[in-house]
């Protein structure tokens, strides 16, 4: 029975070894903030952190997660939505339907952890998530806002 460390908690799950991490998180662990969009690593909706690295969970079987690897999902990014990325997102009213946003936020958080002041090219290289509502420009602006640690604009 695979054991996953998710958001700081060890969870034993009963699934077939080839079950994608995404579905183990959603259906066994019961955390549904991580989304299914394509199942083929093309959209980024399922992005979680595995030892801090943005990872498309639909393309990783649970058996590929080594014991001790730490998985963080959107629910575990901050206890109360106070991660700088989440705050910047709120300040700029980024989400439209919101479905892609957990993946966007997780990808952005990993990017900023690795590169606190990313260039536009670096942002583009990491942020390949699909948003069909078209929030890209606000996502980019929010990443820059978070990077600057700037005071959120209101209204």
């Amino acid at each position, binding site marked *: 029975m695979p054991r996953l460390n998710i958001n700081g908690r060890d969870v034993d799950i009963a*699934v*077939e070894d080839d*079950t*994608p991490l995404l*579905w183990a998180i*959603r*259906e*066994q662990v*019961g*955390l*549904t*903030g*991580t*989304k*299914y*969009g*394509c*199942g*083929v690593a*093309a*959209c980024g*909706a399922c992005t979680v952190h595995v030892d801090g690295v943005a990872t498309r969970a639909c393309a990783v079987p649970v058996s590929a997660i080594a014991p001790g690897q730490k998985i963080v*999902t*959107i*629910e575990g*990014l*901050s206890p*109360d*939505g106070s991660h700088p990325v*989440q705050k910047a*997102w*709120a300040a700029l*009213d*980024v*989400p*439209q*339907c*919101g*479905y892609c*946003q*957990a993946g966007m*936020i997780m990808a952005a958080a990993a990017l900023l952890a690795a590169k606190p002041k990313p260039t536009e090219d670096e*942002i*583009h*290289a990491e*942020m*390949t*998530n*699909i*948003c*069909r*509502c*078209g*929030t*890209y*420009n*606000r*996502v*980019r602006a929010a990443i820059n806002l978070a990077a600057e640690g700037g005071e959120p604009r209101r*209204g």
Partner: protein
Amino acid sequence: MTMTAAHMRSTVSRRGFLAASAATAGAFSLGFHIPFAQAQGADVPEINAWVVIKPDETVVIRIARSEMGQGTLTGLAQLVAEELECDWSKVTTEYPTPGQNLARQRVWRNFSTGGSRGIRESHDYVRRGGAAAREMLIRAAAEDWKVAPGECRAASGTITHGASGRSTTYGKVAAAAAKLEPPAEVALKDPKDWKIAGKPVQRLDTADKLTGKQVYGVDLKLPGMLNAAIKACPVFGGKVKSFDAAAVQSMPGVKKVVPVGDNAVAVVADTWWRAKVALDALPIVWDEGAHAKASSADTAAMLKEGLTAEQAFVANQTGDVKAALAGAAKRIEAVYGYPHQNHATMEPMNATAKWTADRCEVWTPTQNGESALAATAEASGLPAAKCEVYKIHLGGGFGRRGMTDWIRQVVAIAKEMPGTPVKLIWSREEDMTQGKYHPVTQCRLVGGLDASGNLTGLHMRISGQSILAGVLPQNLQNGRDPVTFQGLNPPGPEASLGYTVPNLLIDHAMRNPHVPPGFWRGVNLNQNAIYLECFMDELAHATGQDPLAFRRKLMVNSPKHLAVLNAAAERAGWDKPAPAGVHRGLAQIMGFGSYVAAVAEVSVSPKGQLKIHRIVAATDPGHAVNPQQIAAQVEGSFVYGLSAALYGECTVKDGRIEQENFDTYQVLRMDEMPKVETVLVPSGGFWGGVGEPTIAVAAPAVLNAIFAATGKRIRTLPLKHHDLSKA
């Protein structure tokens, strides 16, 4: 696995979905099936259908239309709150259910959320709802104080009586107000006095979308729920011949294999992933039917024939186009084409249903709660009064979720498992191949110009698919589909052509392939704007005229169209040269009640690499309810429109759609997203939509800029098939 009630609740903590646990007598519940969970209990008075005010001053505004990202929930709440004179910081929202609407004689009227109609169609009655509630609250306070209501005024949720200096709050008088007769007449505020509406307030639905708390349809959990994966015949019109349930029956988690209608099979299992694994392993034999060999080439040939066919439905006609073209000093002709495309909402189609012999409930993201309820009733075999639909925020809609096909499926599956809730989620592959596609059309345009370069005659022949014929055949007018001509209509308040051409003929030869069509964000305005605006560009260039000046000459009778075009051109600096290596194109159109125009600035490298640097987009929606959300819709429209222009294409081979996922159905990503400047020029006096019209100018503005950059005229989409390199 089992989950604790506490855990379940924590996953659905969004207000409006969370039932007071007392209301379910301690039962394990999610609250979705308790209408108005927030607004229950004797001391939580409903002032009227739109407004509930709680003793703690919370204002619950009921929203009949669906929120799918477009911001209509916040916009409608702003309009109600404006008239209500409540404290905006106390506002929350909830969806009334379609069943409640039915039971209360459609007190919330239309639930349908498409055609950018959410606000423009309901602004009047929702504002009246807010105004009536305000009057009742004031009257309740006045009666308590024994003063005339006219001597009292309300602001920010507080009622004051100037003469006596008394004041009270909405929460305190709400119970008394709820018992009063509603006023017969209410006056609405002049939009120039708005304090909440018209302002760039932040959305009400953001917080839970940042933390994973927002519950979408795919996230729903009900006690004892099972999960289903489905596969329908990949060839449209085909059926299931047979399947071998025994082959997968013993796979992990599998509960049941069920036929769904005559064209699909579903596997029900404990988890969705196990259902999908078993479904993929299930041997199914299809009867592919009459279209087993159909291809995109067949469709193209059929449409080509329609371009010159004798018979066509006429939409817009003046003068004698035949004579004008025959006598023209210069005649320009071109054929354009627009392919099938998938909506590709990020959240795939899904719904949860629970069926028993005397009740059927469905939880689903839908753009039309009422048609979802009707479909539930039909599929369940129960009267609508014994059915209910609970709407959930949509993970994208774009028109796809105005349909009900997946709802009928989930009810059919749930019927096989009485008493057990079943959640059906389409795989992305199912979503891509069982769509309701953007209609496929071609257009032949012939323009005639006189010796001084004036357009004297224009014939636009559209050949191709009708959405209405596929979706709402009862709405055809003697076989004619009026929606086909969006943006090309005679002068009027909706989707009118902005050009006056002395001899004009716009007609449609309907040619319907077997691929099912659907309303796709922007609908027919998308291709019509490309046909019209790229051809206008062709005419201008063919006669050596500036594309803006050429258009202006034809727009003297369309001042609103012209004003928006001018606004975009001015902001873009059309009269000044573009930066070195950068080229401009423009487009304008009217649709969904609004006027839009765009200028695109692009460069194309010698190797043919396109870069879109900047978009200037002007919009006149009449009244602007939330400028920052309009900007978000305009930006989003460019993503949707440019995805369609650059990549969007669903091709047919052997009767089925070839693109099965985002690896082959490409869409725009962040690195390609241009800077977008939104120029909002609301001229007042009318209400236009904002979720769709701008999409239509995205592609033609860029295509015209590409011509300016390369001299290459792109007449068929998507752009990915064209070589833009210097030959």
